[in-house]
């Protein structure tokens, strides 16, 4: 095939040169490398395909060196990173399948569709493994509520997540919502999905068997989301509006039907491999399947169902239209699959077949648009160890700030609760169906969500965390803290962590300080995972999150799935009845670096974040789990952002019950954010049993008072407060919608 001329009649293809390669995001060196691999100039389609495969998004070229640090094996791990989602064995013949992924940039451009298609994408990653999705989480970071467009973005993102998740019937059971100016121009939308599958029924995306047909199922292909960079190039007749790439629009109905049809198809034994078409669409799905199986393939692109006429081979290969799946079927058994998809009114067509040539041959009406060796292209994907540098002002940022005294701790508490950051997130999650599928024991609003595993006594728990300010002030500690808090949240509902997924949201990795943050955060997460023996089984990296040249705060979101052997042992995060006695587990060390108290009340973002003592966290988690599982506590709530003061208030809200307590410290110290702490409540003799349990594990425990009445009364040597629960609740309930004017 000679290059520099049109490969396919009827489609204009621009001349290939280094400049066009640069517009495709390939560096000069990468382009040279491509020429070397091919032994000739690439065709236009080949250039598009190669640049997509070598993009940061698909190749992880800037982060791969660090991701190796994660511990990813363990006795429960069935599939680690590398597949569409990770898989862990949870007993009773079941596996938990989960992953988290970002949809940051699309959500900033079009919040509803960006967030919606983010949910759609992560669902496909999970059901493509043969799992039925049973729960979603969403981890959101927004700018200041008063920033331009911000309430529009929040509203759109929340509606989009709800619009998609509610329609497909997967409950959205939790998440996190953070507000910080560093996201004013670049919000973060990370979507997590958890599915369950029978362990013997896990599907992978490993192509096998030359001659096996390649099937395309689902929505038609349009010009959705094709490479921004290439579109800017002059290769397109200007003024041709129709050729512009378009925003991806989600179609949750088609997704729902795809889920049902694919899960049914997976019971036929006609499927060899299956993979969703995510980023870089048909390109990445086809190449990944082939490269995992060391095979080649031929596609007849004119057979790809199109939404509009006239898409070129280049566009067909790079379209990111949603709700599409690629399947390798056993030759001769396609009929069974066709029947199922047609029964569900889904479009399905055979678009090619596997070959043993090791080459990807892309044809259009018999003309060859691309002919390229798979393995060299995927193997040669670049990998960079980019320069790292500690920020010059790190020491200054970390220097211990003076902590202003809280003359009126009650007022300080009211003010904190009324912020968007610490206020109730119910305005968000009441827009999400969190009870569909009838598994939800604990939905949003607790420390971790809990879902029954029907047909077994067990339940799954899931939670997500990250504290971007801690991560900015000390990314390693911040990374460890995210894991520690998740593990603590799981322990509060009696769950033992079985696997973790992450989504690493960072700025521009070509900035050495950003690459340093990335490395440090990964090391922090890895260290914590090793300490808790939690494998990292999947994840995602989102780089180049910038706001006018200013990188976002490092935001390594993590989500952890936990196992509860017996779902009947139930705790909630709030006080349940008058007469419950309240115990504090763990000890305050008066730590304020990055705290809500300093930031939200005094506008000070400074100091080292609270220490993360992994051994102490592990002991606390063990005590909590044992206490829950032995039925020793009815209430357990971890102490995190906003410290003891906020945790106590939150514990009052669930049932509108007050408490009368005497605590050490007091004053501003009520808002210290020392890690490794929780409060529990219980009755009668169980109080002593909890104290004994804590002592046996070497965890400090202190009885501080009793639940009752409708006031929260806190006595403390350095100043307490007494406030009506209803007043606290009012401030907390309307904080978020009021800040956003929604």
């Amino acid at each position: 095939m000679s290059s520099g001329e049109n490969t396919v009649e009827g489609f204009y293809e621009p001349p290939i040169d280094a400049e066009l390669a640069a517009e495709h995001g390939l560096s000069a060196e990468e382009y040279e490398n491509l020429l070397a691999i091919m032994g000739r100039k690439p065709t236009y389609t080949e250039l598009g395909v190669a640049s997509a495969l070598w993009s940061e998004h698909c190749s992880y070229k800037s982060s791969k060196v660090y991701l190796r640090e994660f511990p990813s094996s363990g006795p429960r791990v069935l599939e680690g990173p590398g597949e569409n989602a990770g898989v862990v064995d949870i007993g009773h013949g079941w596996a938990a399948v989960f992953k988290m992924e970002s949809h940051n940039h699309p959500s900033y451009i079009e919040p509803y569709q960006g967030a919606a298609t983010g949910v759609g994408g992560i669902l496909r990653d999970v059901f493509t493994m043969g799992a039925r999705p049973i729960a979603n989480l969403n981890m959101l970071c927004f700018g200041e509520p008063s920033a331009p467009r911000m309430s529009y973005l929040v509203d759109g993102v929340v509606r989009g997540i709800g619009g998609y998740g509610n329609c497909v019937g997967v409950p959205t059971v939790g998440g996190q919502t953070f507000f910080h100016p560093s996201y004013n121009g670049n919000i973060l939308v990370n979507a997590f999905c958890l599915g369950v599958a029978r362990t013997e029924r896990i599907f992978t995306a490993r192509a096998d068997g030359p001659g096996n047909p390649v099937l395309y199922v689902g929505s038609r292909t349009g010009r959705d989301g094709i490479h921004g960079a290439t579109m800017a190039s002059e290769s397109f007749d200007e003024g041709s509006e129709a050729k512009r790439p378009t925003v991806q629009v989600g179609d949750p109905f088609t997704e729902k039907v795809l889920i049902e049809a694919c899960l049914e198809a997976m019971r036929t034994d006609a499927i060899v491999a299956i993979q969703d078409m995510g980023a870089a669409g048909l390109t990445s799905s086809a190449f990944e399947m082939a490269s995992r199986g060391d095979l080649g393939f031929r596609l007849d692109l004119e057979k790809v169902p199109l939404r509009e006429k006239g898409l070129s081979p280049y566009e067909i290969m790079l379209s990111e239209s949603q709700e599409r799946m690629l399947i390798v079927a056993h030759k001769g058994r396609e009929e069974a699959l066709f029947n199922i998809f047609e029964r569900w009114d889904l479009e399905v067509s055979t678009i090619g077949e596997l070959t043993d040539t090791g080459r990807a041959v892309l044809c259009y009406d018999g003309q060859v648009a691309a002919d390229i060796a798979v393995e060299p292209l995927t193997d040669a994907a670049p990998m960079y160890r980019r320069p790292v540098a500690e920020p010059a002002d790190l020491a200054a940022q970390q220097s211990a700030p003076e902590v202003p005294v809280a003359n009126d701790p009650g007022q300080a508490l009211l003010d904190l609760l009324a912020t968007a950051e610490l206020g109730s997130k119910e305005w968000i999650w009441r827009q999400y169906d969190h009870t569909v599928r009838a598994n939800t024991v604990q939905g949003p609003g607790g420390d971790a969500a809990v879902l029954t595993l029907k047909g077994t006594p067990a339940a799954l728990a899931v939670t997500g965390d990250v504290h971007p300010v801690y991560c900015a002030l000390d990314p390693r500690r911040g990374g460890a803290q995210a894991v520690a808090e998740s593990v603590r949240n799981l322990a509060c509902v009696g769950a033992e962590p079985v696997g973790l997924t992450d989504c690493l949201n960072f700025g521009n990795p070509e900035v050495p300080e950003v690459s340093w943050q990335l490395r440090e955060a990964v090391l922090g997460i890895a260290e914590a995972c090793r300490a808790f023996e939690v494998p990292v089984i999947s994840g995602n990296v989102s780089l180049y999150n910038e706001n006018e040249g200013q990188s976002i705060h490092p935001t390594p979101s993590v989500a952890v799935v936990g196992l509860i052997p017996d779902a009947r042992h139930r705790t909630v995060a709030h006080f349940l009845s008058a007469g419950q006695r309240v115990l504090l587990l763990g000890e305050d060390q008066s730590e304020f670096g990055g705290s809500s108290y300093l930031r939200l009340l005094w506008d000070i973002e400074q100091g080292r974040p609270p220490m993360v003592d992994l051994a102490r966290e592990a002991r606390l988690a063990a005590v909590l789990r044992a206490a829950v599982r032995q039925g020793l506590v009815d209430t357990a709530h971890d102490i995190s952002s906003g410290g003891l003061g906020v945790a106590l208030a939150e514990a009052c809200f669930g049932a509108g019950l007050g408490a009368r307590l005497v605590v050490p410290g007091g004053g501003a110290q009520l808002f210290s954010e020392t890690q490794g702490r929780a409060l529990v409540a219980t009755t009668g003799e169980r109080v002593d049993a909890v104290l004994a349990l804590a002592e046996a594990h070497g965890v400090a425990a202190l009885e501080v008072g009793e639940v009752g009445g409708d006031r929260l009364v806190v006595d403390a040597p350095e100043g307490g407060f007494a406030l009506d629960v209803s007043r606290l609740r009012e401030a907390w309930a309307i904080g978020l919608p009021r800040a956003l004017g929604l």
Partner: protein
Amino acid sequence: MRSGVIVFPGSNCEHDVYHVLKHVLGQSTRYLWHKDQEIQDCDLVVVPGGFSYGDYLRSGAVAAHSPILAAVRRHAEAGGLVLGICNGFQILQQANLLPGALIHNRDLRFLCVDAWLQVERADLPFTRGYHQGQVIRIPMAHGEGNFQASEEQLDRLEANGQVVFRYRIDNANGSARAIAGIVNERGNVLGLMPHPERAAESVLGNDDGLAFFAGLVESVAASATSGSPLEVA
């Protein structure tokens, strides 16, 4: 009791109802496909929640014309029991098996909360498990559950005793007269927005909805032994 649970493309609560009927209550239960023309051997047909055919146009509008709905209509006309939950309620309304309309929630947002419902009459097969005036807690989750009808029609529903469930404490979606569930004049077709099937097992922390289905099973069993028709006199 033999039940059929309809599956439309886009249904998403069919498994939940099936689970309660089949596994929690041990009743013979099967799925009915939206393209089916007939319903055989069912005492109860459930039109479950979800987003049938995507519900992009208007909730229930497309499903109301599916082949199975003609069979549901015949089943209802023959005195068989029909239960529409959430999207199922919307579908029955669009198919003119129940009166009124369910429009966008008052604040135009999807709303997922626990609803407190007052049981207005306990003499129906659907409510035999409760007593009149009982207040139960049932999860709801919908964007278009705001019940509306003309004043005359509302008066007629009230006078006929067709209002079966009413929101108490908070009428969050803005329904006229806080109506959460209604029955047809004959008493054998019921639609309600909240989801009793999501609150039918103690492990979930709420089993207020179990009596709904258990009451149906009892009613059907009672009518089978007495040979009397199901609907109320």
